[in-house]
């Protein structure tokens, strides 16, 4: 019964918000090329579904690749920075500064280096998504108590064993938290990457639709993007629940 109310509450809220949106559009006579009504967006979503799906697949590939790159890269960076104070001092300011660079500045550079395929978009996504992973992984690697580390050392564990058996498993909870944030950032990153050079994808579709003043199609693309984001977020949560079984047992 509780599951039912769990689902009912957000659904009810969503329905309410949509109703307000629909009503406001109608009452205030908002032009469709400024803000289309949800009903119109839904209609466009259904009628253009094959096209939306086709573009979604392209963007999904960029997001997933970006997540992998950002995830692995971010984690590797966190490990390097953890074990080398020199690298930490040298790299940390750069890592933070990297987040200040607006995408439109670096994206053309990436395209010149990597061409127009999947990689530049995935890289943009990875650049935006790796930051929460580095920060969270670093915190996670640091999380075991002094006593735990001493226990391992007293048992004669090598640094490698301390990493694989203590620090790495200890970092997983915060790492997954970072992954969930990274998912949403990678979705945005892939979309922006497409704005600076693509021939497929939901971001590209948004550009195209905007130029044709088909704002309903822009929103339909955004809806598809949201669905992708939710699916990916859900996927990470499922993996998290399996990996962190021990945490959810009360």
């Amino acid at each position, binding site marked *: 019964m509780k599951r039912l109310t769990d689902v009912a509450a957000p659904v009810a809220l969503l329905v309410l918000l949509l109703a307000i949106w629909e009503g406001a559009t109608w009452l205030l006579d908002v032009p469709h090329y400024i803000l289309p009504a949800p009903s119109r967006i839904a209609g466009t979503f259904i009628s253009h579904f094959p096209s939306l799906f086709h573009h979604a697949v392209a963007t999904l590939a960029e997001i997933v690749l970006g997540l992998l790159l950002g995830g692995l890269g971010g984690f590797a960076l966190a490990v390097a920075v953890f074990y080398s104070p020199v690298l930490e001092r040298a790299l940390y300011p750069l890592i933070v500064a990297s987040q200040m660079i607006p995408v439109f500045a670096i994206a053309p550079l990436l395209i010149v280096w990597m061409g127009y395929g999947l990689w530049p978009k995935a890289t943009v996504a990875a650049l935006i998504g790796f930051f929460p992973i580095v920060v969270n992984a670093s915190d996670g690697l640091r999380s075991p108590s002094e*006593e*735990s580390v001493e226990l391992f050392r*007293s*048992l004669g564990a090598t640094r490698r064993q301390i990493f694989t058996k203590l620090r790495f*498993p200890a970092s997983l909870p915060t790492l997954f938290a970072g992954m969930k944030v990274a998912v949403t950032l990678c979705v945005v990153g892939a979309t922006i990457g497409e704005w600076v050079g693509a021939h497929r994808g939901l971001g590209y579709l948004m550009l195209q639709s905007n130029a044709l003043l088909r704002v309903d199609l822009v929103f339909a693309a955004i809806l598809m993007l949201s669905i992708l984001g939710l699916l990916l977020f859900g996927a990470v949560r499922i993996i998290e629940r399996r990996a962190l079984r021990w945490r959810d047992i009360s």
Partner: protein
Amino acid sequence: MSSRAIAVRGVAKSFAETHVLNSVTFDVKTGTWATILGPSGCGKTTLLRILTGLLDPDAGDVVVGFAPGLTGCAAYLPQRDTLLPWRTALDNATLASEIEGRPRAEARAEAVELFAHFGLAGFEDRFPSQLSGGMRQRLSLIRTFLARRDVLLLDEPLGALDPLTRATLQDWLLLVWTEFRKTILLVTHDVEEALLLSDRVLVMTERPASIALDTPVELRRPRDRASADLAAEKGKLLQMLLGGGR
């Protein structure tokens, strides 16, 4: 095998400005139980860490087991709960074997036996969060045992427990010690516990610490918590503490 499992001579240790240990000297005979009594923050943990080999003394010599202060000669049980929450009870217990690369099946079998022996049968696949405080301490102790060292260094293992659980575990520890005849160095601030469990009591002073008192416990085993003899010994010890040690 040496008759002295632990030999400490004039060990001193400072951290920055703080003088923690100042010429600590004592012996612990093989197979016996010694307890260090002392106020909080007097450096008991530091001493244990030196004995484990995690820390080097600034001065003095330490011999534990066969070799001078080698990491891995003593099994160390830290004060705070160091069970790994993501491992099952059984996997926590076999941590030492895993680190040393012993065959998995063998280590697990050994652990299962101990689980049964010490009342944790059936809890092998539970996670630490599912165990009570007392069970977690038992698990920690099993893990310490399975490290297969002859010397055990226990840092206030029962301090956080309620009196009933503490009493149960004290009896359990005695049982284990009697059965396996390890050399135990226990650190505690509980005078009764020291008298109940150990052959010798070593009283540490406040920082900079040294051994103020080194006295045998002249009570016959098995000892009774409620006995008048124990109470008398406690009285004597307290007098010595309040009078002699600073």
